[in-house]
């Protein structure tokens, strides 16, 4: 059992608490038992002393208050010996007293009758040992009328004694002592103590096993999580930890863990798809180069054919270069936005330049370009180089997807501390189900026709990344066969 483990710690804690509770509680019960037993015994002794006093009193009452009768009464009551002339008059009393003696088991007890100075006058028959002496201070207390209870050890016997003041006619004071054995009480307490000292460890040991069992149950989800975690590799992210029959707090852990794996799974999937797309977009130009070269070399060809193949090779090499450059740019955008150099510039002037250049590009397809923007300057903080890239990516798309003699319109306005630039075209439009995907990497629109310069599929992705780094965004609205509107929003200074 590891000393570092939760199970061990929980067990120790729980046993310790249980142990303390058991000990405290048992002590309490034991002490209270002890107190009760002693208390009862003392009450018994008190009772016995009173009965003896009462008996002496009744004897004296019956026989007369003279000294002789008194001595007889004391002797008779305590030792059952003695004679008196009018003894037969008290035969009923005697009989009753005998009954009481039997009932109280007085014959087992030691009884002393002392005078006020502590001198022993009469002792019960069974008292062979030395007299019980009383210390002066106790005598004093007795003379005040107080009862004294004390425990005495005599010849290895544990005894409890009561000393009660007695007087029958207010003149002479005497002391009645009743002493009884503590053996039953002590024996009972000893047995009880033994039970306690044996049972507490047994209970604790048993509880510790039980505790470990429960701790294991509670910690089972942790074991499950560990097992599941070990099964996960970058290839197999399908395992999950089951969340039924799990306690509340563990459920949170299990769910968080499962969600984490799901997110990882999606990330890996995304990366795999991305790699797949990259592979495809680079392999296709390579396949073309290889195929054309392969076929060309199978026979002797004429010069024109060789030129054609070389031209194709060049084109496809360019294409691959563009893909690689775009990818590098995307990685830079994602992870090192500090390549951007922000500066203050006038958006209107900037867009005018772009507009002029777009006109030239679009004229190849006979597409007309128009612009509608405010006259006053509008200031932005941004990286002109990359923003130019952003806009030209959008314009390239517009030109590519708009048929000959179509239109491209720029509209610029500033509102709410933002610049809103929209580029609309009368082109092929984008299908509704594709709209959320167009900004994804490598999303190619359907190849409707032959493109002179096929796209890398990364243009919109790059544009969006640039917009994000400028704290802006790009939105699109489109209708198939009617056209699309791309709206770029950038914050103003």
């Amino acid at each position, binding site marked *: 059992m590891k000393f570092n483990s939760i199970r061990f710690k929980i067990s120790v804690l729980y046993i310790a608490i249980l142990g303390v509770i058991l000990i405290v509680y048992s002590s309490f019960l034991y002490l209270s038992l002890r107190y009760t037993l002693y208390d009862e015994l003392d009450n018994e002794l008190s009772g016995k002393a009173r009965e003896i006093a009462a008996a002496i009193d009744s004897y004296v009452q019956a026989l007369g208050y003279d000294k002789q009768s008194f001595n007889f009464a004391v002797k008779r009551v305590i030792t059952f010996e003695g004679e008196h002339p009018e003894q037969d008059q008290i035969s009923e009393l005697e009989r009753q007293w005998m009954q009481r003696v039997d009932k109280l088991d007085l014959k087992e007890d030691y009884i002393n009758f002392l005078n006020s100075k502590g001198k022993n006058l009469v002792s019960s028959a069974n008292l062979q040992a030395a007299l019980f002496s009383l210390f002066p201070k106790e005598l004093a207390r007795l003379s005040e009328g107080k009862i004294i209870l004390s425990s005495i050890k005599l010849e290895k016997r544990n005894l409890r004694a009561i000393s009660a003041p007695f007087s029958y006619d207010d003149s002479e004071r005497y002391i009645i002592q009743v002493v009884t054995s503590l053996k039953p009480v002590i024996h009972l307490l000893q047995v009880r103590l033994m039970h306690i000292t044996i049972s507490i460890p047994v209970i604790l040991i048993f509880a510790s096993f039980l505790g470990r069992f429960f701790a294991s149950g509670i910690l089972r989800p942790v074991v499950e999580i560990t097992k599941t975690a070990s099964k996960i590799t970058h290839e197999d992210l399908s395992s999950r930890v089951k969340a039924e029959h799990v306690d509340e707090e563990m459920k949170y852990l299990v769910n968080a863990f499962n969600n984490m794996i799901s997110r990882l799974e999606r990330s890996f999937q995304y990366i795999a798809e991305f790699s797949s797309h990259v592979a*495809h977009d680079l*392999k*296709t130009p390579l*396949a073309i180069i290889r*195929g054309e070269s*392969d076929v060309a070399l*199978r026979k002797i060809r004429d010069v024109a054919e060789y030129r054609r193949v070389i031209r*194709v090779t060049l084109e496809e090499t360019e294409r691959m270069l563009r893909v690689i450059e775009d990818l590098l740019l995307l990685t830079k955008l994602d992870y090192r936005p500090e390549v951007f150099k922000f500066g203050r510039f006038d958006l209107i002037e900037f867009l005018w330049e772009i507009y002029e250049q777009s006109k030239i590009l679009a004229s190849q397809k006979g597409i007309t370009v128009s612009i509608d923007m405010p006259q006053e300057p509008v200031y932005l903080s941004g990286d002109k180089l990359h923003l130019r890239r952003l806009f030209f990516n959008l314009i390239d798309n517009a030109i590519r997807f708009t048929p000959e003699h179509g239109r491209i319109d720029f509209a610029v306005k500033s509102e709410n501390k933002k610049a809103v630039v929209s580029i609309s075209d009368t082109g092929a439009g984008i299908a509704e189900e594709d709209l959320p995907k167009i900004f994804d990497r490598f999303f190619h629109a359907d*190849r409707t026709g032959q493109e002179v310069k096929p796209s890398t599929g990364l243009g919109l992705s790059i544009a969006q990344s640039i917009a994000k780094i400028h704290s802006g965004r790009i939105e699109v609205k489109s209708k198939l066969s009617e056209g699309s509107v791309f709206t770029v929003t950038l914050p103003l200074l």
Partner: protein
Amino acid sequence: MRILLVEDERKIAGFIERGLKEEHFVVDVAYAGENALFLAEVNPYDLIILDIMLPDRDGISVCRELRRKKVDTPILMLTAKDRIGDKVLGLDSGADDYLTKPFAFDEFLARVRALLRRERVDRTTTLRVADLELDQLTHKVRRAGKEITLTSKEYALLEYLMLNANQIVTRTMISEHVWNEDFDSFTNVIDVYINYLRAKIDKSFKKQLIHTIRGTGYILKERADEI
């Protein structure tokens, strides 16, 4: 032999088509899945070359659809995806072979020939009927040891007849396997080519191998009287 090439990248389709035609194959090209399905249902191809990444529906689903429609032409799948899962998916969907781009054209041709051989009992690359030999690798034709020069179409026609040696071949079959979609059924171009072929391989030899079966078609075999 007639091949259906399904590939959306025009440049790739271009060199594959050219390369195959130089090997005397007859090629039809489809740039999208739906078109491919249509062509495959209407024409009996000897081989279908199918790219996986198509614009309208992916090659895997086209392949499954073809098999579902009981088109059992051999299918060679092409793609840039080369992960094991992709290969398994492609082959399990009904393709007979799988080639990743970029590929060496020689290997591509060898696989094409291998798939075409599957239908045959005699699986060599040299076809023989009596003393007539046709080497599919070198495209050389010999009869009784003497080399015979044939044009591309003549070669394709002879190859088809030899692949179906001892079986009657109808004009329709010839038009479907030796010509592509450009075939004009209102001409007698088939008869013309049969004559060209006869002139080259039968005329100066004792035994005639190409026989006309009236009303049905032609047959290439050693003896005319055993039908």
